[in-house]
């Protein structure tokens, strides 16, 4: 079985986001990691490799700066990597790159996070599925395989659905699909020599353009009430905030 795992290279979740002149992310002092949802996808792929036997390829659309993140995915257990040498400027752009690679290979399963934690498009899995004519499911909380039959749990508002589809398919993953994996020493050593192929991007039309960024307005400072002033709080919610 061949599994492709698509990962993003994003600021660690504890990062305080800032921008340079409102035009681009201030990367100063920011630690970049595998996207938290992608991390779940990768962990599930490695689990499937361990239980059923599979070759796991990790793919990232990014410039050279993302290579440490890709190496980390190799250390966690992917067998080889592909880096498509371009800025991941928009979901349509990224989805076309992935579909292009998928068409040249024979993957049974393409896993990725339900969304990236930087641009939060939540689109790439569905787009890739559509481009390849494969089923796609997201957010996928459980994925079990029996031959080419996949049973999945999808989160919906207020509950979950149990779904079934035949491979090949695309899934956008989220917890608790697998336990996050931490690379061990042996993994880190072997990751250094695993193949990381750099390929050129294909050109794509229809991408949206990012003009500027801004931060949410700061909240004015918190108004405190004593435990026995709940009536005053309720009054403030009603008269001042006008939310009751």
């Amino acid at each position, binding site marked *: 079985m061949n599994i492709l795992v698509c990962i993003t290279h994003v600021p660690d979740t504890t990062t305080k986001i800032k921008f340079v002149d409102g035009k681009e992310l201030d990367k100063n002092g920011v630690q970049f990691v595998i996207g938290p949802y992608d991390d779940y996808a990768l962990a599930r792929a490695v689990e499937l490799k361990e239980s059923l036997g599979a070759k796991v390829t990790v793919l990232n659309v990014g410039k050279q700066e993302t290579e440490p993140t890709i190496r980390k995915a190799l250390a966690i257990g992917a067998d080889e990597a592909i880096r498509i040498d371009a800025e991941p400027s928009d979901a349509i752009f990224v989805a076309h790159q992935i579909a292009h690679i998928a068409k040249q290979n024979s993957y049974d399963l393409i896993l990725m996070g339900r969304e990236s934690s930087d641009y939060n498009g939540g689109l790439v899995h569905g787009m890739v599925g559509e481009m390849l004519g494969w089923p796609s499911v997201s957010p996928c909380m459980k994925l079990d395989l029996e031959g080419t039959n996949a049973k999945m749990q999808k989160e919906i508002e207020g509950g979950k659905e149990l779904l079934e589809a035949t491979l090949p398919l695309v899934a956008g993953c989220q*917890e608790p699909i697998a336990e996050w994996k931490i690379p061990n020493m042996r993994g880190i050593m072997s990751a250094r020599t695993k193949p990381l192929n750099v390929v050129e991007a294909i050109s794509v039309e229809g991408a949206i353009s990012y003009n500027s960024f801004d931060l949410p307005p700061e909240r004015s400072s918190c108004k405190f009430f004593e435990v026995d002033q709940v009536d005053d709080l309720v009054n403030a919610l009603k008269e001042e905030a006008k939310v009751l």
Partner: protein
Amino acid sequence: MSVLVFIETNEGEIKSSSLEAVCYAKSINENVVAIMAGEASSKELDILGKYGVTKVFYNESEALANDSQGLAEFIFSGVEKEGADLIIIARSSLADSIAPKLAIKAKASIATNVVDLPSSQSPLTVKRGVFTGKAFATVSLPEGRKVLTLAKNAVGLKESPSSCSSEKLGFSEVASPKVKRLSVEKATGSILLPEADKVVSAGRGLKGPENWEMIEELANTLGAATACSKPVSDMEWRPHHEHVGQTGIKVSPSLYIAIGISGAIQHLAGVNSSKTIVVINKDAEAPFFKSADYGIVGDAFEVVPKLTEAIKRVV
């Protein structure tokens, strides 16, 4: 120009977020056409007309309900029929599955999680939430067909009455859908978290699942949905679909009450676009107070029942 809005229903009622999408469309274009799976009876026509929809495409086929693949195809046939160049969909778990498929099918560009009305029509320029609630980006969509998905509260509801006609749109059922639904587990009757206008959320400070009764009572009193922090769903005190934050649901209600939640940056990411935030925590140093509008330093077990009583006195 023509704008098409996808209408979603829950337990037989048109979702208020779909009506927000209609209002959003109406502010861009006079002519707003809607499309929905299910029956378009006089009840639906009345409510859609009230917000300015002039025509609704529908198909009551059971096979369409909840099938994102089928719905993407169905909406696309509406796009072609109407010659729509802009498609607007309120975010939901179903909508999030439909949108990427529809964008590819319709060869459209797409911006998701849009939080505000366009700042320009040409090129269409909108603000969308990025960095998981920590920032906003202003983006422009290229010429051609476009899809927008809207965050909750991107625009307020505003009536704009017109008369709404209906037109059944053909839909060819696929013999075997690519993804088969084996079963569904869904809480009925409760307020759906992403749709909720008010949310009462509790964290590890509650000590155990047996203490959620007072949280539910407060929520019921307010007509709010309940939510929780990640550790609470990890420990299975509460179901996973109640978990809000960076790795959970993102909410933007008008009122978010956080009880016994410390306010970790990953939690705040999912809730900080709430209009008003109230924090109840026994630790005056809890980071959440820095992101709150109102706070009470105190024991949740004492404060929450008092607060519920106080609210009962005014609403």
